[in-house]
């Protein structure tokens, strides 16, 4: 599920391009060859984070690039970074100067709901926050859960302060520095940490569109 990184500092995430030589497909005569190189990435958690995650959700698997929809990847090109990719971001969420992680993946989570067909089970994807606690510990909090749709079309990001437009009221909403968000083909979904004692800890803001970073 995860790859261990035997270190305690905050080198949490590694983006690794994987070169694949496409030798099996020969393009038709007269057409240029396409797709020589395929990229992927791997999220590497430090031991303490990994242990907390395994304890909370043993089956959790962070989505990889291959889980993502092709059109989504074209509309939201992946920016190489050691702290962010579609399915994981690393940032200090709770303000203790230690990096926290927000991870998007699947954990074989099925939830029942009542429907015209009777009680049916439906699969959900999970977004989990691995939050630092004390000087070395971590705890895991569910940020959200969403009905499973494959291939995946939502990417995580950490937003800079700015504004966005509420999808329903068309009013302007302030985006705070460090707000976590799903970016989708259209609009953003913001999750804001409200504090350890809040229920739930992460507030889900109404859907927003037209996010604009402050000063741009």
């Amino acid at each position: 599920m995860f790859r261990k990184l035997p270190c305690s500092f905050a080198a949490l995430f590694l983006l690794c391009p994987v070169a694949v030589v496409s030798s099996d497909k020969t393009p038709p005569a007269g057409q240029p060859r396409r797709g020589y190189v395929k990229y992927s990435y791997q999220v590497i958690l430090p031991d303490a984070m990994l242990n907390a995650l395994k304890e909370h959700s043993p089956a959790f698997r962070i989505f990889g690039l291959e889980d993502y929809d092709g059109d989504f990847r074209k509309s939201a090109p992946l920016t190489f970074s050691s702290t962010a990719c579609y399915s994981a971001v690393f940032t200090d969420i709770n303000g203790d100067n230690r990096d926290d992680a927000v991870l998007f993946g699947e954990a074989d989570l099925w939830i029942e709901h009542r429907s015209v067909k009777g009680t049916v089970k439906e699969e959900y994807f999970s977004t989990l926050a691995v939050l630092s606690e004390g000087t070395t510990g971590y705890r895991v909090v569910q940020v959200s859960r969403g009905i499973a749709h494959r291939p995946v079309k939502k990417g995580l990001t950490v937003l800079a302060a700015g504004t966005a437009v509420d999808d329903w009221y068309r009013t302007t909403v302030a985006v705070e520095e460090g707000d976590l968000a799903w970016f989708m083909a259209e609009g953003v979904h913001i999750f804001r940490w409200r504090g350890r004692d809040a229920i739930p800890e992460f507030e889900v803001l109404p859907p927003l569109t037209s996010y604009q970073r402050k000063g741009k």
Partner: protein
Amino acid sequence: MKKLLIAAILLGFAAAAKAGINFDQGVDVKAAIGQAGDFPVEMPFIPGYSGPQGKVDIMVSIRSENGEWIPIAAQYENKVPVYTVSPGVEAWTTYSCTHPNPPPNSYWSVRSEYKNYPWYGGHYHSAPPPPNIATPAGDDLPNPIYSKTTPVNTDFVFRWKTPAYATRITQEAVFSYSCASTHVMHIDVRVSESTNPRQWMTMPKGVGYDLHGSTQAHPKNHFGTVRMINTLVKLGGDWKKACPAAGNLSYNDISLPWGGLFDINYNWQPPHEEHKHGINIDVGKRQVVKSNREKLIRMMCDAGFAVRSEGDLETEKRGHYHLTLQPPGQTGWGRTAPFDMDPLGVNCCPANVGDPIPDSKCVDLYDGGEYIPEDPVPPSDCL
């Protein structure tokens, strides 16, 4: 010189015939307008033409659902003919120059240019610009479009498709030779319900509801049939009586002033499949506390709406109820609402008054497929 001129004209007809142009009525549009590469072309100008003065006739027809071509009667606005047609139908514009007894070699031609004014339909946005008017096959209609030089008493016809969005299309036709004159007409593309001011109106302010969703791009977003508006006004009042301590219902997007495609992303495309005919509205879910939602669903079904819950799919950003007004005298009980954005949404009206709400998603809140926790849920404040 005159003989040379006549010979040139006859040669022109022969060339046209060779190119597949049929001067009979009902010519195929591709043949009539020539090959795509021919446009724009300059009309031949032959000085000294002295044929008879003919009479211009213009006709706009639309294809009915059963394939019949129905001529549209013009209304007049400041003496300019206005033809009203529905969005998304095949139309046929016919220009002709007639004379009861035309001498040999009398002919005419026309240059027709259109301009598109979507703000008549309620669209105050232009980035991206509205798509060009298209032929029924989906190609751009040439603009301007030129007829060939044609014998008097022979029609020039071109087929096109009215856009899915409401708009006013102004066509200016410049006729030459035997019918030398300029004619302007408006073609209003709008849903038929919107053409009768006694049956179509905008939503007034009222008790128990607030109106939302107006934007600079679509400033007037609450037009609907009179029966729809009256039903919504009554629903708001009934809601206030049933749940006086609860907040107002949030009404969002019925239809644009002339109906037609409601492109909420301002790109002349769905996702709204409905909201075209003034009988759909979205009612916000977040504005209703979870413990009041079942009450609201039952009130909406009883008022005559089929109710769908949307938002539990990625394609629907915002949790809301999508309502479709049923025909007169019908309630929403057991009715299945057509889908608006995604066919997988859930219907919320039970088959019978006393039956449970058919799907728990009707009461739960989802935005874009994300489950939104609402615990702790306060008790219902409905009476």
